[in-house]
């Protein structure tokens, strides 16, 4: 069972914070297929947040196929297809090429980070996961 926490100063909507924490726990293997998420009542009691917010987060995770609600039982981590992970080394190599290019154009590390953040923002919109 995972325990949710909230950062009230992050500016990220509460339901998205919950979504991100579940996704992060899945990535890190803290949550596995069949594991139960805390019930809405438990999350509400722990964090003093609106139950609709918890439901919204769980609905979002359900839509993405990451969890499934079982009537009268709760919400559980869904079984996932073992999709091939992206080829990170090729992606990293492409990114390194681009960073060199930016360096040659006179950008320092902070400039490059700002460019990358702006481009990510433009591609995914606000508050990309």
């Amino acid at each position: 069972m995972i325990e949710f926490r909230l950062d009230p100063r992050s500016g990220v909507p509460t339901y998205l914070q919950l979504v991100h924490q579940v996704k992060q726990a899945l990535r890190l293997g803290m949550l596995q297929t069949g594991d139960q998420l805390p019930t809405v009542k438990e999350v509400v009691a722990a964090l003093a947040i609106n139950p609709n917010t918890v439901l919204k987060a769980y609905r979002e995770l359900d839509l993405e196929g990451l969890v499934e609600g079982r009537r009268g039982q709760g919400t559980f981590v869904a079984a996932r297809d073992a999709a091939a992970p992206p080829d990170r080394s090729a992606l990293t190599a492409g990114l390194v090429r681009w960073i060199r290019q930016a360096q040659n154009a006179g950008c320092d590390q902070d400039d490059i980070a700002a460019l990358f953040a702006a481009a990510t923002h433009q591609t995914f919109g606000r508050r990309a996961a």
Partner: protein
Amino acid sequence: MSAAIVADRLGKRYGTQRALHDCTLEVPAGSVTALVGPNGAGKTTLLHLIVGLTEPTDGSISVLGASPRAQPTRVLPRIGFVAQDHPLERRFRVGEMLTLGRKLNPRWDDALALEWLHARGIALERRVGELSGGQQAQVALALAIAKRPEVLILDEPAAALDPLARREFLQALMEAVVERELTVLMSSHLLADLERVCDRLVVLASGGVQLNGPLDEIVASHRLLVGPPGDDAAVARVHQVVQTRHTSRQTTLLVRANGHVYDAHWQIEDVALEEIVLAYLQHPEQEVVA
């Protein structure tokens, strides 16, 4: 979702004094709605109109499909109200407050009230005046919940409480929302609390309702744009500009964005709820109902 509360051009005057003006809004059933606005905007007046403590001088108010003043027996037993400063009879014992609630309310659930207070360690023999502020707030909430209301109205319920008591109060309130199908309308100045527990927001200013919609959508749709001075006309054609600030070197716009903002001229930033609410309160001519 059906509306639990519908106000249509609702207004209240006392003589020539305008306490509430041109208030039109709907509160969906099952929502937890925050009511925010400066002192004097008419928040308490609106809440009093909803619970039938006062009569409208303009427009109409309907709660659960009926008028609180014209059809009080249809409405009032179904509304719980936690008034500002939780006015309880200080000399009464907690148990005596429950007796009063039992005698006054046809739908009273005594077991619920007892369990609620027991869970929070509030003894029935204690006199109300001896309880801490947090405990008094919990007693006021227990009395409202034990009516088994469908609509719960709270006027600044946690303003006077310390942070721990406030958190405990909000936890209790959210527990009540989980366990029963409750529509909640709550006024407060504490935006951080409201952002936590509410799913909708109503901003009320002296000119009427400035903003009304789902809280997440409100936060997600507003952006701060920072750019060169005098470049704001193009933005205003696409997005709704809520607030404009100029210096000789830059212009700062707070906009309600119409879709994504892609514009290389502007540095685009997210805005916190507090900034958004303040911008609307400083510019009461903006009126948006989501």
